[in-house]
């Protein structure tokens, strides 16, 4: 490297050194350690005991009677997490995009509407969970009261009914789309007016303008939000932990909740580390799929 390059490298490194040090100490080292722990039996009170692939085996492929493999709670929590994601992800994306489009139309009181939509995403998870727990109360809650007043004779038990608990949680997640909407709004501002004008000259109506101008132009934003949503949805923890504790009958036990229980209730930290690594790999795989597919539908403006 030439001297000038070396100097630049020095300067650059100096500035990013806080992140670099933090990355090594708080990210790289712990990730490597957790990989190691995933191959041990570790209860923190004594040293880790190497057990090879046993944790992974116990989680995924250890044979049990009646053709079952691995830890049923692991598979159940994985299924629950994906079930939730299948509902919350598309609904969240559609609702937040739709809201952003609505909020982008110049209206009287636009700022008020935007504030109202954004407000719930400021609420701490704990408060939000308790509030919705109260709203979903099958006997005294507002939701069932409203349903009954509309004539529904036997409204669902929501959080105490295994069939309705997860849909209830997915519905509740829509309340917090505010920050996603804000990001969409920022993206919508950046769409150049000339394109709309050109489309209108060509005779395109509102819906065609949406499909052919707006969406492609904000596709990078959609992509960003999609990645963030995937990462977030697969890590859901606080809200269901407080609202249902995983019940009824583990119908709402999310992956991270089971992980947390293994780590801090049973002190099976090696087992929990194995679960964490599997979670990481799943997220990476899904993100990779998203990146690969982005070639086909994401258009960068390219400046």
């Amino acid at each position, binding site marked *: 490297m030439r001297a000038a390059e070396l100097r630049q490298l020095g300067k650059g490194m100096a500035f990013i050194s806080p992140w670099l040090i933090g990355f090594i100490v708080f990210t790289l080292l712990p990730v490597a350690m957790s990989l190691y722990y995933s191959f041990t039996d570790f209860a923190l009170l004594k040293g880790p005991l190497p057990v090879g692939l046993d944790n992974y085996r116990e989680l995924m492929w250890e044979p049990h009677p009646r053709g079952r493999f691995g830890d049923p709670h692991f598979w159940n929590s994985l299924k629950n997490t994906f079930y939730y994601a299948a509902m919350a992800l598309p609904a969240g994306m559609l609702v937040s995009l739709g809201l952003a489009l609505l909020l982008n139309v110049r209206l009287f009181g636009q700022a008020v509407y935007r504030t109202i939509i954004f407000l719930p995403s400021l609420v701490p998870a704990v408060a939000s969970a308790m509030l919705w727990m109260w709203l979903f109360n099958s006997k*005294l809650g507002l939701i069932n009261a409203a349903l009954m007043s509309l004539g529904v004779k036997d409204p669902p038990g929501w959080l105490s009914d295994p069939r309705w608990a997860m849909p209830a949680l997915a519905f509740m997640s829509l309340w917090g789309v505010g920050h996603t909407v804000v990001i969409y709004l920022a993206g919508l501002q950046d769409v150049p007016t000339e394109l709309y004008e050109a489309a209108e000259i060509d005779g395109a109506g509102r819906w065609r303008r949406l499909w052919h101008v707006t969406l492609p132009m904000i596709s990078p934003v959609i992509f960003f939000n999609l990645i963030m949503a995937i990462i977030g949805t697969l890590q859901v923890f606080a809200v269901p932990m407080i609202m249902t504790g995983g019940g009824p*009958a583990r119908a709402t036990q999310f992956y991270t909740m089971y992980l947390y229980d293994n780590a801090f209730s049973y002190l099976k930290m090696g087992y929990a580390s194995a679960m964490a690594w599997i979670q990481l790999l799943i997220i990476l795989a899904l993100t990779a799929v998203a990146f690969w597919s982005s070639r086909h539908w994401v258009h960068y403006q390219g400046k």
Partner: protein
Amino acid sequence: MGLLLRQLRNTLLGLFVLAAAVLLVFGPRRSTRPPAGRVVVTYWEKWTGTEGAQMQQIVDEFNNTVGREKGIYVQYLSVSNVDRKTLVATAAGVPPDVAGLWDAQIAQFAAMDALEPLDEMARACGITSDYYKPVYWKACTYEGRLWGLISTPWAVALHYNKRIFQEKAEAIRKAGGDPSRPPRTIEELDRYAEALDERDEMGRLKVAGYLPLEPGWFMVHTPFWFGASIYDEHSQRFTLTDQRVIQAFQWLRSYSERLGPKSMTDFRAGAGGFSGTLNPFLAGTLVMEQQGPWMANYIEEQRPSMNRWKMFKDLKRNEKLAAERKLSVEERRANYEWGAAPFPPSDPAYAGATFAGFDVLVIPAGSKHKKEAFEFIAYVNRQEVMEKICSLHCKNSCLTKVSDEFRNHHPNPYIEVFENLVSSPNARAIPPCPIWPEVVDEMNSTIQNIYLLNATTEEALREAQERLQQKLEKFKERQAQRRRALADARR
């Protein structure tokens, strides 16, 4: 106008920041401050509210007597989820010196080496196995060593509402029962329960005769009243497929089959839960329930009229206690709208069956003041102190010696019922299983599956049996591996 708004906004922002700064600098730091010059023993305990205040009283007395003598100060801190918090804090290397846990933690924590053994310190104080009633002493030990000493013991009995029995005397007699006494067998209990159920106009359950879900704290121990347990410590095997265990959970399920699972969960959602005035037993919407001796206190606090059925209607609690001193136990009981009796077993051979639980004081491993911590634990276990706290908390005693004062003037006139139960050979304590938290979680979801009618009782129990046994085997195998690794390292 815009300028004015902006100035207003800036002022408010300034005020906001000022308030934050004030809070930071002058805000509260700790909830209590220990005096200087004494060894501070941190004591994490689960009790809040009245029960917490009562324990704080004992702590204060210790601090003013033995504490002052020996230079010890016990700092009482009320902690939620105290079991998990203590475990994590111990794993983190910063445990409290004394922790007030539940009986369930003894086997698990001891097996994980998270506790200090207390044998020597106890022996030096004269606390040996004959100091406690057998069922309690055994439950404080694991693999032959002593790991904790009790703070307050209790047991489970049938609580029933005598007034409602009288009101519904006809219905009870029609079901073949006797409204002047509680049911004596499980089969009788079911008949009483069905006769006492009431529904509202919409067909929903308004009053329940009995609901296994309410309060639902002891469901995992249901087999005790059927002469069995879910775990056998001698063979270290789970016994979930034992006929009697299946029978026990089938009984539990029968309520769901009769009432419908949704009506049970709806009833619970609308009920007030334990500690409010809308506790269903207090509100009269639940006629019989499985509860502990503390009910007398809770009823006194939340619905005192139930303890003044015939007399003393206008007396406050202390005055009533004083007035009751002049009465016999039978007269005291007659004045209570509710009664306690042994929870009926499935067969008279299991008479006296109960779940003997307790709150226990332990010293976590790594505690920095073990000797001082034990001074406090030993103090709590003196007969007069133990009887005092048990009296305040309205619980029975775990000691073999029980004073007449305690028996006859306990705030709960039915305390003799509990004392007899915990002295009976059929009394059982929590099974000493080292993977108990996993057992609880597994049993909870299994029981939910059973009463939600998701699977048959046998299927659900069989699956739980396989899973739990396998987990236990793995746990023991790992322990053995560790011991071998340790032995190898030493060579």
